[in-house]
């Protein structure tokens, strides 16, 4: 990872975490398709969502600093996704690789935008840092869940292109 040390991030400073641990991908529960269920699902207008589907939407989002996915860095994990389909609610927790990661807000914004574009509009989404894993946990959580701040951020073309870069290969 010597190359990483000489890379600069968007703010012009050195990488926050030049040498992150890359994890083996975890085994996920297998999805079983029941054809009768599928027919039922297609009949009902409602598109049911489970945690695995939500994880599929965000696992391949790219880390802003490294050519690695959030799944490879264990920033996003299947276990940290809660879905209450009946009440149209999704809660995602993500884990920054280091407690002072200045990219935490950007990563959270990427997850929010990706879910905004992928989930049916009936869903309410809360995005939070896994408790105890970031020094600015409360401040980052507050920003990520303030819709006015998020709306304004997404009108900033520089920020929007950073977000789009990170999520461009995530489908």
């Amino acid at each position, binding site marked *: 990872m010597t190359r990483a040390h000489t890379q600069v991030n968007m703010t012009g400073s050195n990488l926050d975490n030049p040498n992150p641990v890359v994890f083996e991908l975890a085994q996920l529960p297998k999805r079983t398709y029941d054809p009768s269920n599928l027919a039922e699902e297609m009949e009902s207008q409602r598109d049911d969502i489970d945690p695995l589907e939500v994880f599929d939407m965000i696992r391949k989002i790219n880390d802003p600093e490294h050519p690695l996915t959030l799944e490879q860095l264990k920033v996003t994990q299947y276990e940290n996704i809660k879905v209450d389909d009946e009440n149209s609610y999704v809660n995602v927790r993500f884990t920054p690789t280091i407690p002072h990661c200045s990219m935490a807000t950007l990563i959270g914004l990427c997850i929010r935008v990706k879910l905004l574009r992928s989930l049916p509009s009936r869903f309410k989404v809360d995005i939070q840092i896994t408790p105890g894993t970031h020094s600015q946990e409360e401040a980052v959580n507050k920003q990520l869940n303030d*819709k006015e701040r998020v709306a304004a951020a997404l009108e900033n073309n520089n920020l929007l292109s950073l977000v789009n870069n990170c999520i461009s290969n995530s489908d």
Partner: protein
Amino acid sequence: MSATLKNVAVSEGHTDRVWSLSWSPSGSLLASCGGDKTIRLWKLKDDNSLECIHTCIDTHERTIRHVCWSPSGQYLAAASFDSTASVWKKVNNNGEIALEMLARLEGHENEVKSVSWDASGSLLATCSRDKSVWIWDMDEDEEFNCVAVLHGHSQDVKAVKWHPSKEILFSSSYDDTIKAWEDDEDDWYCSHTLTGHTSTVWDVSFNSDGSKMVSCSDDNNLIIWDTKVIGDGPKQVCTLSGYHTRTIFSVDWSEEGYIASAGADDSIHIFREDGPGDSSEDKKVSFSQTSVERKAHGGDVNCVTWRPAKREDGTILLASCGDDNLIKLWALEI
């Protein structure tokens, strides 16, 4: 006492989230704005539907967050994420009502989030993510001069609202507080800081005589404040908890005493102060929910506002707008 909301109109037109609504003082026009960067003017028709009669485009480069009519109904102010506010004049061209831009207010460093006219219509307040509140004075030539730049909030200022009769400005913020600003011979200062909410305070509204104020927050609560004795500072008299399940973005207190609140749980709640006989303890202020509309919009409800005047048949109207790009009108059935 029960009162329920009945949906009487749904208006399409905006192509993005609708952020804010403002009734003209007579209640004949409704202004709206949103993420599509337009301001729309709607005429209230006899059958309680809305007709879009004018659209302002290409004025603001980014979201228009808030609109507010002046007390005379002659001017409309708008706040935009492009860090400016604009003031529009209502014109009547051979019966065609339109808005013409009068001034652009520049000075804030980033997103302007709210605008409010004082009771006289000569002072306009603006607030921004830059943590400041500005007060502008409109002179006889309809020109605007900044008379105060107020610092005090430690975070974004979400909303500004003048007291309905006194020259006191209230601002609510991402720093979880509300501040009251008063002037001492043209020297504006923060006279009180109101704490009580545990997260962002999104909006405030006053009852008709200004003796009480209600605030709403990301903590899902509404707080009622006694504002009669400003000298000692507004006192928290009642908290309405357990009604909204997500952030409350907007609250409005009607002339008739009804409080409407709305937010990210897609719902609109209506509350009313209990009469002296309804309350278990004497002299204790209490409020009861009279109505709730759980799926008021297909997404967050961003603004609720009562029509300032009853219709001729006595109907009280409420307008709401949301992330579903729609504006809805509701009749309060008492």
